[in-house]
């Protein structure tokens, strides 16, 4: 059996879904981040001066790009897979001979595609305000894709457990957004007083944002190796958990 056809069917369906509703999926991050760059980067940033030897605008660009990747890769999978459950067309996949790993890969790659596309749009918007050159393309690209993968997986797990549309908005609103803002998007953790530095280091998003910042402008508050190890470890754990949930049929089968 040729599973690549099933995989590409799910992936293309997912990409068509978010591109069909582009005013809901691609336009809002472009507008929001343009405002971030204008208000925080330009108006306030000009008064802040240098952070780690770079302008404040250049300092916040990587964090804002990655924050968009995180929220959109997550929300794509959580809303799409939950709708699939809610409208019961998950049954189309369950009756067909599609292995669980293909279902997972299809939805997660759909989330990665949206996360990456939104990231590219936001990066394009940032070029209107600054001309940051990317110092380490390989590291930046790897963090970009790995972060999208990790949060697409997390969105999938959220969708599996969700029983209502409320359940798919709780994590993004009350967990992801605060962790992103507290993950050093707008500041260096070195600016935090004593104990808050230690607390901030328990936030996994801090590692991803700093690794991406290192890839783009060569500045980081954390060890890059540790950031990759942490992201990789989370991806492996969430992949195993997602496959287990699919195998048991939790939230999907009776």
């Amino acid at each position, binding site marked *: 059996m040729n599973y690549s*056809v099933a995989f590409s069917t799910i992936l293309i369906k997912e990409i068509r879904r978010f591109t069909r509703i582009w005013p809901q999926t691609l336009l809002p991050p472009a507008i929001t981040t343009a405002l971030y760059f204008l208000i925080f980067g330009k108006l306030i940033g000009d008064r802040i001066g240098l952070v780690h030897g770079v302008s404040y605008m250049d300092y916040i660009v990587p964090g804002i790009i990655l924050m968009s990747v995180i929220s959109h890769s997550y929300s794509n999978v959580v809303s799409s897979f939950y709708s699939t459950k809610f409208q*019961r*067309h998950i049954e189309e996949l369950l*009756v067909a*001979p599609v292995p669980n790993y293909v279902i997972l890969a299809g939805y997660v790659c759909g989330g990665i595609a949206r996360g990456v596309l939104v990231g590219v749009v936001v990066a394009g918007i940032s070029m209107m305000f600054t001309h940051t050159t990317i110092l380490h393309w390989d590291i930046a690209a790897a963090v970009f894709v790995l972060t999208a993968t990790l949060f697409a997986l997390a969105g999938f797990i959220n969708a599996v457990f969700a029983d209502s549309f409320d359940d798919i908005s709780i994590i993004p609103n009350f967990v992801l957004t605060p962790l992103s803002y507290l993950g050093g998007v707008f500041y260096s953790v070195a600016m935090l007083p004593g104990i808050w530095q230690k607390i901030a280091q328990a936030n996994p998003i801090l590692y991803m944002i700093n690794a991406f910042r290192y890839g783009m402008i060569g500045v980081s508050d954390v060890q890059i190796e540790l950031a990759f190890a942490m992201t990789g470890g989370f991806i492996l754990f969430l992949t195993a958990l997602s496959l287990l949930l699919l195998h048991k049929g939790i939230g999907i089968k*009776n």
Partner: protein
Amino acid sequence: MTALSIQNLKKTYNNGFVALKGVDLDVQRGDFFALLGPNGAGKSTLIGIISSLVNKTSGSVSIFGHDLDKDNVAAKTCIGVVPQEVNFNQFETSMSVVMNQAGYYGIPRKQALQRTEQCLRQMELWDKRDVVSRRLSGGMKRRLMIARAMVHSPRLLILDEPTAGVDIEIRRSMWEMMQDVNKQGTTIILTTHYLEEAESLCRNIAIINNGQIVEKSAMSSLLSRLQTDHFVLDIARPLTQAPLIDGCEIVLSADTVLDVAVPKSHGLNRLFQALSEQHIEVLSLRNKSNRLEQLFLDLVQ
């Protein structure tokens, strides 16, 4: 070869409800098989397990010799399922709904396009291929689900109340479509609440009640158990009251139509003789189509 073989299938839901209490069932290849039962009898659970939508508690299911647990891919490839309720993405076009399903079965795009066209044409939906599926009528949505279920040419097609809620004209056209599909060699399992539908389409029947199969036989042998035959007679001249004939129950359902219940021991010759003596001319005679109803009620009550 059996198309479907179920052995000692049990299902207990998490809330403790026992939906299936050890079902054994065989459906032969090429059959048009009726699975009947009252609401809550276990039909949907049984179909859910066969279609991999519900986890079984114990027992085994094999489809054309492929065990659903051990040889999952081959077993699933043999089945097409038409569920009771609409379960396709209603924001997609009819064409996409069927094409996506072909993709899930691993059919390459070029071949999938051909099969999709074939199935949509067979279900008379080809001219609706670009219509967003939520805009289709109820009957069209059901036919779209049949087209989707057939796109990978399944050897076993499970139709779960496919004609529920559709008008008689669409129901008749769907019967013809189902018969055509069966004639082409596809085994069909049909669940329905329209007993005349099961009687006129199916060759074999199983009745499930309280999670157990309470009857399993050929339709003809089940119907032969009826002690009384029901006929509808069209007569030449209108009557004002039903004629009285010893041994038969006759109701005047319209001024030129008689509903007659004739005990098998009585025989039709005596009926016609008695009608002739009363100068009643019979123009035509047909079986009343809900003969199965009484047997069904006897078995499930």
